[in-house]
């Protein structure tokens, strides 16, 4: 009669011990399963895929991109560049470095790019070599890593037109002096010191900003290839009769040699 409760007590005690032991092993097993995976994770292999970027013209400013790949996730990616032949480098948002487009992280087995702005002087020829220095943190190891490499930018001489005159017609009321915008798109790599002046029919008064003898561009002093900007002039047509007139434009700039070109805009006086 005394043995039965004793056996049950022993079985129950063993059961509880086993459950307690296994419960204690759960976090241990989890840690053991994770620890070897972290320490055995291979180091991220980061590569600069780009060796040569699309060709540029001497004198050109452009945003160019370097493509990067990684075998494992990395974070905190940054890159800085320096260039030969007097070319200058700038980065997005005025920062001192560039990063991957959209974020500073790169998931394993994927590619992304880091862009930077480069201005090549007219004096450069042949090619520009860009030295690239990148840093990142290996996602699985939490350790910083780095790489240095080079990218080549082939150069050629530009031989096309200087610009495209976008504005072909302006309209002003006869009663009120009015500011109008003359828009241009750069075709040559860079038109430094861009100025425009206007001559029109007798009786038309033309006023330039600051009461000068010509107008500069609204954005910067030079017209960059592929960029559209405008010059403002004020027209007083009070002495003209309503109708259409021809305005002669004279544009001066350096590309890099001093250059003068002309164009025509139709003035409509209402």
């Amino acid at each position, binding site marked *: 009669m005394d043995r039965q409760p004793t056996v049950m007590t022993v079985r129950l005690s*063993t*059961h509880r011990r*086993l*459950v307690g032991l*296994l*419960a204690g*092993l*759960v*976090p241990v*097993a*989890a840690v*053991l*399963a*994770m620890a070897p*995976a972290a320490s055995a994770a291979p180091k991220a292999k980061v590569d600069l*895929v*780009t060796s040569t*970027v*699309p060709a*540029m013209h001497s004198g*050109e*400013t*452009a*945003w*160019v*991109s370097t*493509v990067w790949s990684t075998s494992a*996730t990395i*974070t905190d990616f940054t890159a800085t560049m320096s260039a030969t032949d007097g070319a200058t480098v700038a980065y*997005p948002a005025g920062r001192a470095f560039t990063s991957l*487009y*959209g*974020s500073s*992280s*790169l*998931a*394993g*087995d*994927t*590619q*992304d*790019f880091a*862009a930077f*702005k480069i201005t090549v002087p007219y004096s450069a020829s042949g090619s520009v070599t860009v030295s690239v220095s990148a840093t990142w943190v290996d*996602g699985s190891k939490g350790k910083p890593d780095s790489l240095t490499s080079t990218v080549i930018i082939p150069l050629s001489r530009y031989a096309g037109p200087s610009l495209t005159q976008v504005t072909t017609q302006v309209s002003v009321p006869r009663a009120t002096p009015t500011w109008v915008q003359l828009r241009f798109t750069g075709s040559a790599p860079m038109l430094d010191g861009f100025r425009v002046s206007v001559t029109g029919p007798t009786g038309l008064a033309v006023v330039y900003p600051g009461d000068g003898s010509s107008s500069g561009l609204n954005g910067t002093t030079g017209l*960059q*290839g*592929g*960029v559209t900007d405008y010059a403002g002039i004020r027209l007083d047509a009070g002495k003209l009769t309503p109708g259409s007139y021809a305005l002669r434009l004279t544009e001066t700039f350096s590309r890099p040699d001093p250059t003068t070109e002309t164009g025509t805009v139709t003035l409509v006086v209402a």
Partner: protein
Amino acid sequence: MSSRSAARLLLALAALAAAGCGTGGSSEPPATSETAKLAKVQAAFVCEVARTNYPTEQQLKAALVTRLRAADLTYSGWKQWHDSLVESRSRAAQLASFTHHC
């Protein structure tokens, strides 16, 4: 519950815990047909910038926006997806499957 059953249950829990540590568990953003479209646009965009110089930074972004609109996607959606790549192996795998060596 027998001792053997309790042991099996706890071992299964341990295995699940270990597996969860390795993959990020069920909180990983899922790969969908929408994320596949984003991955396809991203891969093509990276190829485009690799062979194109842009006069301005705005024109570079405009090139992406144009591609997204053509695929009926938005820039904000692309940004959220891009940020999720490092925490979603399945989405990163989608991107990798579309990535070309361009």
